[in-house]
């Protein structure tokens, strides 16, 4: 578990996931459900690809252009949500939203490396960046109902 007070390590973590994202690219996988992730006031233009098998997320990828916060958050979140059910995924996202809104009731264990975004709440305009992929996942599950 990463130390949430080690800012140097957290910075490095964000930079690593931004510059070398592990979940970037769809690799021509035609079975993914594609969702556009963007906001009219930011320069992020990401596209999400998701697949659920046996009620668990089996693939969660993204492509496009994004800022450090949106790309790193998308990458870390994608790692966390793999093999999770809808309920489990939404729970992680809910706790991430608590963190981003500076609500101390979040479950740190569930957030794992997402804790690196502990201070994004100070930059209100960047909460939208940090939640781009999270919102795409929520939209996907909503669409299934």
């Amino acid at each position, binding site marked *: 578990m990463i130390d949430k007070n080690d800012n140097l390590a957290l910075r490095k973590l964000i930079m690593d996931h931004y510059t070398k994202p592990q979940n970037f690219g769809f690799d021509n996988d035609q079975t993914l459900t594609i969702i556009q992730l963007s906001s009219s006031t*930011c320069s992020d233009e990401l596209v999400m690809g998701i697949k659920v098998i046996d009620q668990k997320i089996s693939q969660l990828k993204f492509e496009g252009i994004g*800022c450090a916060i949106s790309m790193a958050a998308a990458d870390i979140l994608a790692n966390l949500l793999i093999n999770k059910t809808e309920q489990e995924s939404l729970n992680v996202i809910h706790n991430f939203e608590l963190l981003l809104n500076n609500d101390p009731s979040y479950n740190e264990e569930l957030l794992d490396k997402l804790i690196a975004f502990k201070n994004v709440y*100070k930059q209100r305009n960047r909460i939208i960046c940090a939640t781009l992929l999270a919102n795409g996942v929520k939209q996907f599950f909503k669409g299934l109902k």
Partner: protein
Amino acid sequence: MNLKDKFPIFKKNKNLIYFDNSATTLKPITVIGQEMAYLTNIGANPNSNDYEIAIQANELLATTRNKIARFINAPKAEEIIFTSGTTHAINQIAFGLKQQFQPGDEIVVTAIEHSANLLPWVVIGQEFDLVVKKLLLNQATGIDLDQIKNVITSKTKVVSFAAVSNTIGYVNEVDKIIAEIRKINQTTIVVVDCAQSIAHLPTDVQQWDADFIAFSAHKMYGPFGIGVLWGKTEHLTKLAPIFYGGGMSSKINLQLTDYVLEPLPSRLEAGTPNISAIAGFDTAIDFLNEIGMENIHQYEKELKNYAIEQIEKFNLKAKIDFYNLDNDAPMLTFNAHGFNPQDVANYLSFKYNIATRSGSHCARRTDEVLPTSVSVRASFGVYNTKAEIDLFIQGLGELDNFLDIIF
């Protein structure tokens, strides 16, 4: 030129460096005061005219219309149509021309138009089966004069372009472009989007020989929610209104099957005008006239040249791509290698209180002429200084620290 004292926002935000003047300009105390004075002392609807304050409202409307006509050298004040802004004005032109379109007619724009001068034409093109084409641009992303003859044809109904682009800032030679269009087709209607030029360069609709122009007061140190559609009388009288309502109808027949509209400008100004904003607009024109448009142009050019010198001095080109150093429009559009524009803009704000804008700047097809669809834009206005540019240059030199904003 030190004008900051005239802008109350700098009293509250002492260290604000405002480089987002292409999005909107800040408001001088005189403009704010005039809008407030209207609401405090006059407050009437200019569609009434039977008592003192209503008479004053009507006089203000007439005075401002005249002042704006002189500001753009329009031959007649009734050719000044008040709109909510540039977007409303261009939509009024595009949809107001609909009775004049034949299937197959051509609309000509450029790839770097703002959405306000692109989307209405795309929509009207779809609806009336028109061909929407693009003028070709030169290396510096201005309209290529030599290529105009290869695009304009006998079927070109409208050419609509920005005098200055909102992303790159290239200053188009409006008069020469229009002359070139007229050589090929004398009936083509030429629309000039002046949103980005109106507060930075002199505007002369007669010297340009434009048919319509559009601009917004808020980009010229004036209030939000008010702007101008100017057109030659012959075109304005044929334009179908997009809004119908009070103040513009002189007669509706008993059977409710026919109507007569008021003459210009009323026929294109349905409803109650944003009269308190018009009061502020009037003062914004005074503000610009007092400094002088030619002086503004020279001063802002000096700022741009100074920025270019500093970019060279600190060798910033080694790690930042600047897309518009070869034109004298007062804006810089750039991308730092390996950095997303939003991260750059947020860092400049966080560390230096510098307001810039990141993104596509509402010009969705710019990636046809730039190597990117998103960028950072720093745009200057009359209150900006060389000292502010120094801080901006310093900030650009230390972008590696951009994650400071969340730690």
